[in-house]
């Protein structure tokens, strides 16, 4: 990290943008409040994110043409997001910038403690974290003003890295409640337990789970793999425009990984987007990312194609900024 900072800040030869950064009229260097849609990150980009942000001013969004040729809507736009741990006020996110368009698969990688999971949790409003700056806009709405329930109903789904056990509440009751909350929001009649069973039992195949899985208490006594499958199962049942998958691949054996990846791919449509957090390249063999972001010390420091992930897998994070 120190290496990276010294590189990007001390080599005058590398960027015409440095003068801009040092401009006294703009003392907050990287907040860039007026920036309009970030540059489509499907374009490979090895530059540090601060440069990305600046570049975005110069290059207005291109109309997407990689999937279906139609112009794509901006789904999620995160600008200079900073957040601290609620209790200790320790800063974790220090200005994250990210833009996700419809139908894209984004991957965030990074060392342990770089802020990846915090980023995911902050997006869904986890009470352990407090947002101290920046903005998050989802389909034109300010996410930071929304309660966690509203975010979920708006279509943001996060699969938990460590799914919570809820003894005494069966999986099917839990999902029925969540599903009915969605239907209520849409003004549709709620489904009774029987109707809901009819709907949900067809989704079990997606994650390769047996029917008795529905009657077990939520995550109680589940193996690591079952918990992860259950998260994807919930995603399949509830649906989401933006699925944030926090280390969905950790603790899975190869078969389970394939099942989970298959399920995620099955859920991908030109309108749905996925933000995956992972440590390993192997997940990307099953789910093809639109672009890969590297996170370090609470910022996205590099954005590019899948090749970045391959390089990280091979060389580790230390080698990263030298390129």
């Amino acid at each position, binding site marked *: 990290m120190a290496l990276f900072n010294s590189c990007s800040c001390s080599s005058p030869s590398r960027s015409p943008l440095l003068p801009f950064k040092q401009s006294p009229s703009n003392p907050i260097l990287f907040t860039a409040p007026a920036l309009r849609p970030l540059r489509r990150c499907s374009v490979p980009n090895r530059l540090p994110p601060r440069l990305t942000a600046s570049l975005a001013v110069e290059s207005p969004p291109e109309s997407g043409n990689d999937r279906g040729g139609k112009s794509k809507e901006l789904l999620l736009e995160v600008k200079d997001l900073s957040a601290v741990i609620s209790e200790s006020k320790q800063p974790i996110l220090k200005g994250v910038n990210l833009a996700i368009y419809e139908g894209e698969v984004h991957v965030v990688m990074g060392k342990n403690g770089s802020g990846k999971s915090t980023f995911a949790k902050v997006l869904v409003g986890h009470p352990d974290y407090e947002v101290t700056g920046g903005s998050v806009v989802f389909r034109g709405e300010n996410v930071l003003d929304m309660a*966690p*329930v509203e975010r979920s109903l708006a279509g943001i789904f996060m699969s938990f890295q460590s799914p919570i056990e809820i003894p005494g509440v069966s999986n099917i009751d839990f999902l029925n*409640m969540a599903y009915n909350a969605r239907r209520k929001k849409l003004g549709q009649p709620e489904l009774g337990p029987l109707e809901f069973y009819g709907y949900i039992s067809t989704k079990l195949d997606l994650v390769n789970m047996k029917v008795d899985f529905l009657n077990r208490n939520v995550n109680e006594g589940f193996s690591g793999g079952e918990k992860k499958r259950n998260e994807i199962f919930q995603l399949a049942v509830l649906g989401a425009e933006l699925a944030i998958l926090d280390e969905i691949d950790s603790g899975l054996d190869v078969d389970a990984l394939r099942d989970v990846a298959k399920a995620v791919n099955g859920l991908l449509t030109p309108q749905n987007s996925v933000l995956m957090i992972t440590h390993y390249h192997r997940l990307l063999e099953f789910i093809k990312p639109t672009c890969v972001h590297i996170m370090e010390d609470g910022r996205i420091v590099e954005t590019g194609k899948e090749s970045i992930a391959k390089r990280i897998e091979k060389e580790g994070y230390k080698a990263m900024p030298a390129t």
Partner: protein
Amino acid sequence: MATSIFTPNYPLKPSSSICVNTSPNPSKFATYIIKPRPRTTRINVLAAIASLSDPFVLQIAETLEDSLSSASPPLPLQKLREASSQSLLSTPWPSRKDEPFRFTDTSFIKLSHIQPIQFPPQSTNFLGVSTDTHLPNLVIVDGFLIDSLSQFPQLPNGAFVGTLSNLNSEAIMNRVSEFMSNFEGDLFWSLNGVGTPDLVLVYVPEGCRVESPLHLRYCSVSGGDSESKNLPISNPRVLVVVEKGGEIDIVEEYVGVEGEKCYWANSVTEVVIGEGGKVSHSYLQSQSMNAAHIKWTSVRQESASTYELVEVSTGGKLSRHNLHVQQVGPDTVTELSTFHLSSSDQTQDLHSKLVLDHPRGVSRQLHKCIVAHSLGQAVFDGNVKVNRYAQQTDAGQLTRSLLLEPRATVNVKPNLQIIANDVKCSHGAAISDLEENQLFYFQARGVDLATARRALIFSFGSEVIERLPHSFLRKKVENHIKQLLDPAVKGFK
């Protein structure tokens, strides 16, 4: 692993002087009353006895005794009354200084005007007693078994269900006699022994399996208004004897029939399980929120017998359950699952004691309670005693409490006393509000906070409710608890 936890003792302080008015109708209680005398060394002994004779207790005992019908009772009942009145002479009304009542305030009963219920209520008052039940059932109104409302079960030969006065078999009578007065309960146990109008006996002979569950429905009809201070007391008493290899499924249900009346149900159930026998016991208590409900359950387990209790208590202003399980042979299995809900200004108290004196006993105890009112209280004292010869005992105890309101109170005292050196014992106690991370998990899936809270509160109790052996009971309890908790959940919004 062997650990011992010793319970502190709070000895009674003899009060310095006691003055009692002689009762207008002298009974044997009056004759024992000792008047204060000048202090000498000899008198100190008498003063100690005098200090233990509580005039208030004697007065209740006397009125109870007066209320009984003059017909001579069956021998075991007579024996019970004598033993009980004897012990009342030296039993004072409990105070907060007594360890078993340290957290349980009984002054509400003491400050009321206690009236014995002399006769079973007139049949016009039975209108409120619902008769919707699928099972053979005995209806016990204000402590009296009412034949006309009951639906007696079809019983195999040698079995008996009914009052002791209706029992014709001398053999069974002798058998019942053996179990009278060989257990020492507390004041309330003895008051019941003095005041019970008759004893309801359930007798299951050797090797007999009673197929359908027997439903005992205790209804309280007489009751005072909450302002009147009148507190009618009923003393139902049931003895269940299951001989070697016998099995029965007992459901006890306590209800107040009409409105939120004031009354005092002072109930005793004794269960004797012979070798290899099995008793499944469901106990539901949903008395009036102004009632006092004091209940004893005393169980004797012979070798290789099984006792399973599932309790759900939600009613009563003061509800106390004294549960005593005594092992009298090896290889017993004991499962106790209890759920208490304190949803208003009320106290729910469980004092359980499990005494293991023989090898290879297995016991599992789970106690859960929710206090959902700022003036609500829950008390749990769970004692497990593993004595010297109870080697290879496997005893587990867990209590979990959920406090949903500021100032809601719970007092838990799990305690193990272990003398044997080759045993497996565990205990745990947890007190909490709802888990934040569980609530967030619901919200992250779009479920609003109030719904999430409701689901989590219900799920907390369902661990016990699910163990009720009959679906109609589970359904009944679930609906009742939903009703009781609704204000608590709504209040949160």
